[in-house]
């Protein structure tokens, strides 16, 4: 590092910047848009943290402040538009402001706010209002209240407001102290119109009040800044008003634009006092209108009541007529069921009888069939039997007998034949051995000592041989034997 380079103190540097900033910006008024990230008040001064961001990322940040000396003029400008500084310097709000850039040797850069543009804030409120109105229209909630019947005489009033505020006092005082009519019964539903939970409180109060026997509900507020009254543009409150079946009269003190609640309620008056006036004036006008003649009043009242009670009678009438119809229809239905039941009973019994009779008849027929079958079986059996008996006697047995007799005859003739043959054969054989016959034919018989030659074993030489013939008996001696 070279030592010959020129070196300054921080003070010198800051002094230089301070001078440059003063020269360049102190007389210039610059308009910027930014968001309030932090807001603090101290000794009448406001210290803010201003930021700018793009897609969730901070792109710039600076200190901002409103000097006590400047506060008055800013407040005055805003007041003309029904706004307060305190409304405007709320964290999260986008604002358009004119600033002067200043630089302090110790505190660095800061933006001194000279003017706040109310139109940006008002534009925001307007935008929300438009969106909420559209939603209410879409849901068909805009005209519900205006269709409710708001009679001329509304004695019982539910009052929603913040007690001890001027608007509240104005309303109640006006009801009590007027020359027309004061005999009101007021049921108070206190709400804190400025507190954080004001929206829910008011909506709950409306719902609660609608459960009471009151003729109308009054919602009052003794004026306030545009931001203060902005809660009356809130959807939750408007929705509660629309859904309420008791006519709601608003008395919210505002000089310029009305709030959405005024648009959805049955009637809206500019101030709480005016709202109170509406109540007693209606009675007053009604009384005035009917004051000329008592009779006329009676007629008119009766007419009015008749109109209302006509509807009642109509529905009551329908009711009783329908009850009769229902009873009659039920009687007929019951009768139908009972008749049907009796019919079914009869059908059941008679079909049971038929089935029983069929069963019995079938059984009896089966029994008779069974008998008939047996009869024909016996007839067949005995028929076959007799047939067989007849066959045996007239054919089989006689044939057997005849066969035996034939066999006997055959055998007999065989026996006789063979016997005859045997005898004949014996005779022939006898003929062959009969010597007389042999000699006749020229044969001779020779014996030795009366014995057959063939039976002799001894030597035949020189033996005496006797030979028989037809005519002679020869004696000779054997000389030689030839074999």
């Amino acid at each position, binding site marked *: 590092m070279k030592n010959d380079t020129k070196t300054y103190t921080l003070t010198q540097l800051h002094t230089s910047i301070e001078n440059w900033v003063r020269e360049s910006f102190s007389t210039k008024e610059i308009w910027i848009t930014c968001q309030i990230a932090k807001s603090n008040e101290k000794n009448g001064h406001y210290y803010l943290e201003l930021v700018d961001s793009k897609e969730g990322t901070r792109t710039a940040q600076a200190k901002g402040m409103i000097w006590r000396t400047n506060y008055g003029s800013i407040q005055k400008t805003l007041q003309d538009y029904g706004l307060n500084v305190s409304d405007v310097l709320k964290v999260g709000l986008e604002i358009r402001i004119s600033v002067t850039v200043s630089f302090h040797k110790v505190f660095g850069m800061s933006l001194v706010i000279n003017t706040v543009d109310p139109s940006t804030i008002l534009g925001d409120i307007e935008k929300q209002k438009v969106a909420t109105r559209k939603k209410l229209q879409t849901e068909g909630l805009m005209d519900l209240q205006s269709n409710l019947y708001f009679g001329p005489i509304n004695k019982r009033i539910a009052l929603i407001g913040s007690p001890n505020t001027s608007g509240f006092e104005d309303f109640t005082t006006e009801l009590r102290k007027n020359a027309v009519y004061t005999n009101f019964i007021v049921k108070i539903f206190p709400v804190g119109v400025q507190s954080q939970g004001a929206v829910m409180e008011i909506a709950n109060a409306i719902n609660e009040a609608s459960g009471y026997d009151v003729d109308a509900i009054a919602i009052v507020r003794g004026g306030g800044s545009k931001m203060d009254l902005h809660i009356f543009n809130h959807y939750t409150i408007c929705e509660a008003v629309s859904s309420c079946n008791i006519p709601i009269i608003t008395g919210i003190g505002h000089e310029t634009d009305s709030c959405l609640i005024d648009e959805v309620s049955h009637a809206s008056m500019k101030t709480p006092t005016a709202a109170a006036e509406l109540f007693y004036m209606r009675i007053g006008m009604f009384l005035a209108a009917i004051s000329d003649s008592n009779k006329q009043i009676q007629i008119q009242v009766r007419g009015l009541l008749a109109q209302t009670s006509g509807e009642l009678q109509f529905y009551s009438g329908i009711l009783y007529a329908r009850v009769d119809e229902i009873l009659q229809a039920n009687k007929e239905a019951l009768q139908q069921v*009972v008749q049907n039941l009796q019919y079914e009973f009869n059908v059941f*019994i008679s079909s049971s009888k038929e089935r*029983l009779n069929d*069963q*019995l008849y079938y059984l009896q027929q*089966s*029994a008779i069939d*069974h008998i008939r079958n047996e009869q024909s079986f016996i007839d067949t059996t005995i028929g076959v039997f007799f047939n067989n008996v007849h066959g045996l006697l007239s054919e089989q047995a006689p044939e057997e007998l005849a066969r035996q007799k034939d066999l006997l005859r055959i055998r007999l003739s065989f026996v006789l034949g063979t016997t005859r043959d045997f005898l004949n054969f014996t005779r022939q054989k006898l003929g062959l051995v009969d010597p007389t016959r042999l000699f006749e034919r020229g044969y001779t018989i020779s014996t030795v000592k009366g014995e057959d030659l063939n039976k002799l074993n001894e030597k035949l030489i020189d033996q005496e041989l006797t030979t028989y013939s037809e005519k002679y008996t020869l004696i000779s001696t054997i000389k030689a034997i030839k074999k």
Partner: protein
Amino acid sequence: MTKQEIKNLKYDVALELLKEISQKLENKEISIDDLTDQVQLANQLADHCKGKLKATEDEIKKIIQTDAPD
């Protein structure tokens, strides 16, 4: 089955017995010797059933009649 026993039978049981006899007859499972008895029994069963039907009918009529003037 004695008359008394038949008398004590439920309608459904009696009808079932009747059907059984009928079935047996069809299958020739009943001897001629038993036939008369079985037919007699069947007849008694049928009478019993008829009686039950008649009684039921009468009761129903009675119930319906007492109901009628209503």
